[in-house]
């Protein structure tokens, strides 16, 4: 809780972040290109520069403790790229980024999930894939198992699950770890209605434990309910950083 009269400490600071995403097609990725360029010297004048897509263009924002930032924008506007830069997966091409605290990214559901392993084994596998230590995940696993409500299905291979059940399991695993800074990409329909409401409650609980959240979604209701700040992205450019209502209005207008 922020102390009155004191500004809550800044947790995330991004200063004119840009990301040029290099595209390696068969042309630029193939070794022949390098070899011919090397071997034939100036004889073959082919354009071998790596093609790149500007995924982010001068994005700046600052988040303090307690902030929940909504990322809004069309497909391909740079939401996922920004989350990946924040997660430290993609290096920015220019600008800089400062993060304070443990960062965790829920960018893909079912990461590390093995279809032939049982649900219980997958709790460990997914946890390890997400970079959690074994001790930590073993400590959390009874709680994860209980939350998923999969009961005896946990001892069956995930292959036998319906897609809703598998999603339920991966959500339970991913949301059990409470980091300082949480990055979420598209939390979409999780299982049936009853579980969805439960998941919402859990997410709220998780959000309360987390200092800073950055969430990309098209679900305006979800964003209205969770977030206090918003950033609208268009073609990698930051259109507006403001309150959620304005951002959603702007997003829906375009």
């Amino acid at each position, binding site marked *: 809780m922020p102390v009155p009269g004191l500004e809550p400490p800044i947790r995330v600071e991004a200063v004119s972040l840009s990301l040029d995403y*290099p595209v390696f097609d068969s042309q630029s*990725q*193939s070794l*022949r290109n390098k070899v011919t360029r090397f071997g034939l010297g100036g004889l073959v004048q082919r354009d071998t520069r790596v093609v790149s897509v500007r995924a982010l263009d001068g994005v700046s924002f600052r988040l303090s403790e307690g902030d929940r930032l909504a990322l809004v924008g069309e497909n391909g506007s740079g939401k996922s790229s920004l989350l990946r830069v924040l997660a430290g997966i993609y290096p*920015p091409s220019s600008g800089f980024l400062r993060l304070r605290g443990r*960062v965790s990214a829920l960018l893909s559901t079912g*990461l*590390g999930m093995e279809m032939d392993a049982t649900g219980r084994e997958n709790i460990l596998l997914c946890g390890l894939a997400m970079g959690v230590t*074994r001790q930590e995940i073993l400590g959390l696993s009874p709680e994860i198992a209980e939350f998923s409500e999969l009961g005896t299905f946990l001892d069956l291979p995930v292959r036998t699950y319906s897609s809703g059940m598998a999603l339920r399991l991966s959500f339970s695993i991913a949301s059990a770890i409470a980091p300082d800074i949480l990055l979420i990409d598209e939390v979409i329909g999780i299982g049936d209605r009853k579980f969805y409401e439960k998941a919402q409650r859990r997410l709220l609980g998780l959000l309360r434990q987390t200092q800073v959240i950055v969430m990309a979604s098209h679900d305006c209701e979800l964003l209205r309910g969770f977030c206090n700040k918003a950033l609208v992205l268009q073609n990698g450019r930051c259109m507006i950083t403001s309150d959620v209502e304005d951002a959603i209005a702007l997003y829906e207008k375009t």
Partner: protein
Amino acid sequence: MILPVSKTPLAAMAAEAWQDMYRGFRDVDFWVRLAYFDLVLRYRRTSFGPWWVVVTTALSVGSLGLIFSLVMHQNPAKYLPYLASGIILWQFISLCITISCDTLEKYAETINNTRTDYSRFILRLIGYHVLILAHNLTIFVVVAVIFKVDFLVMLPLFALGMILVMINLYWIGMLVALLSARFHDVTQVIQAAMSLLFLITPVFWHKQVLGKFAYLAVFNPLVHLLDVVRDPLLGQVPSALTYEALIGMGAAGLILVFLLLTFKRRLIPFWV
């Protein structure tokens, strides 16, 4: 603080590369467990599990052994243990190298969605193939018992050899994984090269048949990788040159991989 690659101090990038490699080795528990998981999951729905691999290897050892002891007029009692150990160990070495090529692609989803160490993927792969090797070695044990080869006396040397082989496979695996993630043709080149190398490496034939060209074999690094583990199994002490070569190769290779990771590590998510 996350800076663009061009502005990140070299020391910071070197530290990242070092962390990647160091944590890989430190978290033995992690990749040994995952390697074991990989093995269990791969064969979960079969009745014989990894012993299917043993059956396949046994068939190739048996048929090659039969044919070559006739063609090359070899004494089966001497030739079969030599061939069995050669084929089994070669399979281990060559699979580790060829499969490393696809490893980063295989884990592309993980690489693109979490911050992860790359070395653990290669170590997990090597761990998996060590487990397969352990199964396959039963073939050699059977052959050795039948033909009375005393492989137990040199067991400590075999263990030492395995460590040297694994260290070398680690850097070779990392190198080919990085190269083939960036240049997809490398995978094909490595696969073609390995089948050629199988023929020019003394796996199923003796170095001695090269006659006065036998010295050429020392320039083939795979000869050393093979000899350092095969010789002890056959009750012989590997040559000092083999140890020197492997230690030298290992050191040079680890440095090479460290340098590659220092300069290119942060671009890997773009490659896969």
